[in-house]
């Protein structure tokens, strides 16, 4: 798929996700995940030095966070860093993750004293994937 098509899809996906977010609907998370995936596809086409490439990478991570999928956001940031993203972009992506973690810590200060927020987010991801008691395969 070419960049133009992907750009068009991303724009409409973002618009939809924002609308769903405004309405506080559950589907917003999956809409943001869709945005994140489209941005990831775009990032594959556009190099990291390119402005559009930087925006796509940043958008993929931010959308993953908006989709409440911290593990995916962390994974994307890690991958983009390894694929030659600039130092500035890497910092920007780390800041996004940090802000998310800090947000959780600020909201639940007692929990943060006993648990690292990252661990909490990772455990949440694990529980989501494996279900209660991690029983699901």
């Amino acid at each position, binding site marked *: 798929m070419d960049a133009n098509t992907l750009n068009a899809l991303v724009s409409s996906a973002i618009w939809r996700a924002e609308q769903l977010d405004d309405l506080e609907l559950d589907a917003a*998370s999956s809409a943001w995940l869709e945005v994140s995936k489209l941005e990831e596809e775009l990032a594959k086409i556009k190099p990291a030095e390119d402005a559009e490439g930087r925006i796509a990478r940043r958008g993929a991570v931010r959308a993953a966070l908006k*989709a*409440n*999928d*911290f*593990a995916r956001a962390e994974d994307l940031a890690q991958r983009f860093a390894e694929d030659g993203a600039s130092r500035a972009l890497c910092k920007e992506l780390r800041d996004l993750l940090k802000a998310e973690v800090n947000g*959780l810590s600020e*909201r*639940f*200060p*007692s*929990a943060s*004293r*006993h*648990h690292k*927020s990252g*661990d*909490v*987010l990772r*455990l*949440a*991801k*694990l*529980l*989501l994937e*494996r*279900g*209660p*008691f*991690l*029983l699901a395969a």
Partner: protein
Amino acid sequence: MQTIAFYSYKGGVGRSLLVANAARFLGMLGKRVVALDLDIEAPGLHYKLGRATDSDSKPAIAGGAVPYLVATAKGAKNPPPLQEHMAKLALPEGTEGWLQLMPAGPAPRREYWTALKQLRERLRFDEPSGKGLAALLDLHARIEDELKPDYLLIDSRTGVTELGGLATTALADCVVCLLVPNQESVDGTLAIVEALKASSKQTGRDPVRVVPVMARTTGDPANEGRMSEGIERLVKLGEGRAEDDKKNPKPFVLPHDSALGTTDKVVVGEKKASAFSPLHKAYLELFQHLFPQARKEAEEALHRLTAVAQLKEELTERRRRRFRFRDAFDPWKESAIEEGVVFKSDRGKTTSYADLVCRSAKGDPLMIVEYVSESEESEALERWKEHGDARCVILLHKRTQYGGYGQKVYCRSGRWGKFEPTDRHEPPTPIEFEIFENPGKRSIDEMLEALHRGNAELAPELVAEWQECMAGLIMHKFGPPWRPGEARRILDGLAATEKVEVAVRILRYAARKASHRPEFDDFDERHGGGALNTITEEELFAPLFWRLPAEAAIKYMSEPDHPFWTPCLAGRRLLSEEVMGLHYDPLRNALKESDSLAGQLLDEDGEGDHDESQRLHVIERRLFRESRSRLCDDPPPLLLWDQKLRDDRYWSGDLTDLDGKTLEKAKKLMADASQLRTWLRGRINKNSLVTGSLIGRYDPASGQVELYPAILDALGPLLGLQPRYLKNIVFIQLSVWAIAHQARDCDGQPGFGFAVASAASPFQRESPAHIALSQYFVFRLIERLGDISLMGAFEKLSEKQPEPYRRWRSMRRIPVEQMRTALLRARLGEAALGLPGAGSES
């Protein structure tokens, strides 16, 4: 803070009740405890714990875990104050620990379900943002940081749910998994336990302890098949009981308790013995394992409850004493025992806790029971010396050397006395507090005195005491020491009983004790218990039969369950076999009598209308229902003759044609004490107090012995004798006549068969030789009984009787064997009935 989650794959296993019991247990041991209800779909922990402090209502709290999490989900900057969502629960006074409850919410009120709906909308525990998980972890951390409890106990959601999963995998250090003994529950629990054990690797947490607990069991779980394998695997994955076999631990078990199950009562922490049940015991055994820091306390609580419950059971049931032939006094009534009583000192400064208080009918404390460690005994005694008026303190303690429970009985005389140790092994019974000033020091004399005052309850105890005194004679090293002197004292004391009801009870117990009791066969046969029964029959029952008031013997012999019961006949056997040399066998006599009766009935019933059952009914009535001895209130024949002859000097001498007028006059005389005394004085002055027809009568046709109590009661004071002894003498005299007719000689033929006076005519009197002979046997029996009072009465009465009644004095030196030989010869026609030493008839 240690977090323990209580989980069950299926509901209705008693999980919340276990949480409530565990929380209260820890709280009472001085631990700081928070109980958190995360069973948000069906919350109930507040009911269980609410009832522990207040029987009517749940804890007054509007908040709880659900309202708290809703407030958190709204994203408020300042987290809601924890205390608004907690309820502090009361623990017994003096408890150092505390117990706080965070219920799920004010369920089942409407606002709770509204809050739960909001929670579902705003906070999902499986959302990838981690908000749900973080909110729960935050609550957990706040409880730890702000309340600083030692334990957080979580009542987790049943089944496979996000919240249940988080409580067990993300919060708990230990998970107690409850299951019931069925395949569905075992399989489901096994899947969860395997997942829990595996989860720590994936989550990076420390391995979680898992304790499977089988709940609602009604017996031993199956030890074969798939279910058994599942249980075995559960215990291998988790932790089990290893008391019996360390290599093969078993699951912890909470037995089904229908009584507790329906009330949902929190029993742990209750010191009352009545709260003790198999389920309560199982809770404490589980807690010993679950809370290693509290193991000692749980063990102690278990020992206390077991010991107190055992003692209470012992107090309220009739016990067997040291020797198996002993009975016991009436036990304590359940209502007389109060449990868990706190006594305050007079100044109200100090308190003492009694596990049991046994009270008198008025409610005064008589006996205190307390469980203490051996080192605290003297301190406890000092305390009880000051508190209350109890006269006995029983201190229970665990035996360190031999296991089990020991008890020491301390008694004192009055409320100010010092408690002294006693050599009693068993606690005193209620009556002992009435009888003895100091129940620790029982004496035979005090017991006898109380018996004579009318405490019939003492009869079995004294009979048992007599047996214990005599047991050494037969049982040798297996029995207690032989104490013939004390046995004699008891026998004489029992025989001196005046009250007829008490005397009947003595005879009843003596007969019962003399009978063979099959349940003691082994013991008795090995150690001479059977012989003890025989001795009791011959040396206790038989003498008492003649020495106790005659009314008692007559009443006892008329009781429906006695006829021909061997111990009851021991009295008559003593007279017939030991004294008169005749064989007394009422069963054989009854058999013959029944044959004769059956023959008579057949003769009467020429048409053959009577069927066999009718005949049997007649025989049964004659043999078993009609009493062979009785007290008769009618005027005696001699009085009737006397009245008749006053009116008609030429009377033929046949009472069969007695007119009503004479009878009326005789009755009138009987009713007038003064007239009766005057009439009797006349008889006394003429030494004509004949036994037959005046003070008693024997009817050979019916075999019945009759005593005339009105005459005897009037006669006693005139002779300077107690009527009761007079009645005994007359009863013995007439019984000699009865035995002479009913017993058989050594050749199997009927005995002496003395010709008796006719009840109808004053002119057919007994043979003087027969009278002399019967008096000889009366003397011999009284001599054998060794009863001075009876002997005195016999001597005095015979002095006022006609001459033949006094001949026994000259015959007293003749050995009984010589007398029997002479009688046998006389019966066989070898010699006239000129009795040796009897002198000539006057």
